[in-house]
């Protein structure tokens, strides 16, 4: 099938993105930001078919334009897949291969493992499926280590032809969704937070760069360090950079919502974004081994290489070092090396 988007699609998306920038800037979890995006995309694209493996309310896959798809109601556009992550993903692959429909389906990131082989086949087949994975770190809190993803994003990033987005706020979430929908031959995963995250101020130029996967939020020619983060940890490097600035130390700040996409950029763009000679501190509340393609031996990754624990999210973030104080401490150690 032609798989063409409506003629005014790009223009409508630009308007939607502008409205997000002028609207109320309240803290919002990226899973909720995703739902806000779906209100736009599902209304615009009747072929976009949602679903969740029994976590509709938690994955925020049900938009204002969604209606239940039931055995006796096949005209609905949101599927109750039941607790069947692998089945859901293989069936979504089948729907996409059939043509005429564009599915997206949600579960917790930790249960991506159940679906792993069907995710892999989507990448191998070069079909642009969309996987919505919420509750993306120990930040999910009390449900504990059985529900807290650690190594999952590493295996997703290691999968050839799969773009994995871990947006930091509603603007990055909107770009991630748009990239997923525009994709012709690459499946996308959207890695979304359970907890609220602050809105990030950006210039138009910065917004135009988000689709490259990684981009500078702040740049100084004489920066002492480059701070890099994705998703929920972007706020930590932003506040750490402020604290450093107060002490007269300049830091470059890179938001990295999609490492896969960033790696596909030209060498000059990559080097311009992350100066190779600059000390680098990377913060992501998932396994650290994703990042070794960017780091030198002296650089630091603040990640989590053990299983998590059951506790309120703020306590866990404290315990595992995802605090402004720890980021600041590690940044200073790195600068002094």
């Amino acid at each position, binding site marked *: 099938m032609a798989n063409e988007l409506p003629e005014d699609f790009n223009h409508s998306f630009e308007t939607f993105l502008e409205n997000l920038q002028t609207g109320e800037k309240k803290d919002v979890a990226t899973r909720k930001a995703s739902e806000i995006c779906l209100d736009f995309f599902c209304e615009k694209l009747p072929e976009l078919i949602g679903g969740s493996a029994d976590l509709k309310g938690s994955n925020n896959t049900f938009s204002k334009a969604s209606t239940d798809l039931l055995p006796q109601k096949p005209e609905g556009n949101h599927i109750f897949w039941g607790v069947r992550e692998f089945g859901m993903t293989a069936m979504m692959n089948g729907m996409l291969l*059939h043509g005429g429909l564009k599915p997206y389906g949600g579960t917790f990131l930790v249960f991506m493992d159940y679906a792993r082989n069907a995710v892999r086949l989507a990448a191998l087949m070069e079909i642009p499926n969309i996987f919505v994975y919420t509750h993306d770190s120990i930040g999910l809190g009390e449900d504990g280590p059985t529900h807290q993803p650690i190594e999952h994003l590493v295996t997703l990033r290691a999968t050839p032809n799969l773009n994995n987005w871990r947006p930091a706020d509603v603007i990055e979430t909107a770009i991630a969704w748009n990239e997923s929908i525009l994709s012709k031959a690459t499946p996308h995963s959207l890695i979304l937070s359970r907890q609220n995250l602050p809105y990030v101020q950006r210039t138009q130029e910065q917004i135009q760069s988000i689709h490259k996967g990684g981009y500078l939020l702040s740049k100084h020619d004489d920066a002492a360090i480059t701070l890099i983060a994705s998703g929920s940890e972007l706020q930590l490097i932003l506040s750490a950079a402020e604290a450093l600035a107060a002490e007269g130390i300049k830091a470059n700040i890179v938001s990295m919502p999609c490492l896969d996409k960033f790696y596909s950029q030209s060498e000059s763009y990559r080097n311009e974004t992350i100066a190779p000679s600059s000390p680098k501190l990377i913060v992501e509340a998932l396994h650290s081994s994703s990042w070794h393609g960017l780091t030198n031996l002296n650089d630091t990754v603040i990640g989590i290489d053990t299983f998590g624990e059951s506790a309120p999210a703020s306590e866990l973030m404290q315990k595992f070092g995802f605090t402004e104080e720890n980021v600041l401490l590690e940044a200073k150690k790195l600068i002094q090396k």
Partner: protein
Amino acid sequence: MHKDLANAIRFLSIDAVQAAKSGHPGMPMGMADIAVALWKYNLKHNPSNPTWFNRDRFVLSNGHGSMLLYSLLHLTGYNLSIEDIKNFRQLGSKTPGHPELDLDIGIETTTGPLGQGLGNAVGMALAEKMLAARFNKADLSPIDHFTYAFLGDGCLMEGISHEVSSFAGTHGLGKLICFYDQNGISIDGEISDWFTDNTVQRFESYNWQVIEVDGHNIEAMLDAIAIAKEESAKPTLICCKTTIGFGSPNKAGTSGVHGSPLGEDEIEITRKQLGWEHEPFEIPEQISAEWNNYEEGNSSNTQWDDLMSEYSKVYPARAFIAAKING
């Protein structure tokens, strides 16, 4: 003629596996008769327009039997030559070890990891039902096709087969028809020591229609397919009792024929046993002609094109959908 049609599949598969010195001859030899019942008499497809939107979808969930699919695509007239068959499993060929999605030659999905093809097939049947609900009208039904899948014992052992069959039954996907190649053998041998489910009861409990047939009796399978097509409220599983490696005097019915070439000597006596006198990779013209689906495919496709143009006239508000689907 049925015997020759099935043997054409068997020997293309046997010879390609032998030439590659690797592959799985047992399943194509065992399922060749089922393939005749489905592909010769039921499957609606157009080799000269493989992406025709209203074609029946066919999924080979037991993807290791790839030579069965390549044989069928070659014989029915897709752009898959005898040279491509001779290049089975070679670097850069159109005929890799397991089927890899290639709509230009009629391969609807990548299969091999067992059970997942069944999942894909359920998704395809669901998509058909959803699109039909959106676009079909009382007088004109542009979306109207079946989804067929071949499955093996391994597919039904994998946990995903439960997830997707349960879903398909709940949704009453009546246009999903699956053929279970019930040969009782998996790689480690006879499955009686590790897979003893009552598959009939299992699928009936999922709200499927289940029919049991002799997988080497083409007439019986044609009857079963007719019954399956009649049932619009439930998916159908046709359990086909077969012999893996059918026709091989020493290896039929054993795991030895699952994933290894038969060997020159065994091929020689298998040719005698099945009465196939032809050289490797040689298909007599009459059998090729009988298999070719070019004319029938074109004719069904043209009828549908006419229906679509009528549909676009009568339901102009839906025209954008028509354009999408035609593309």
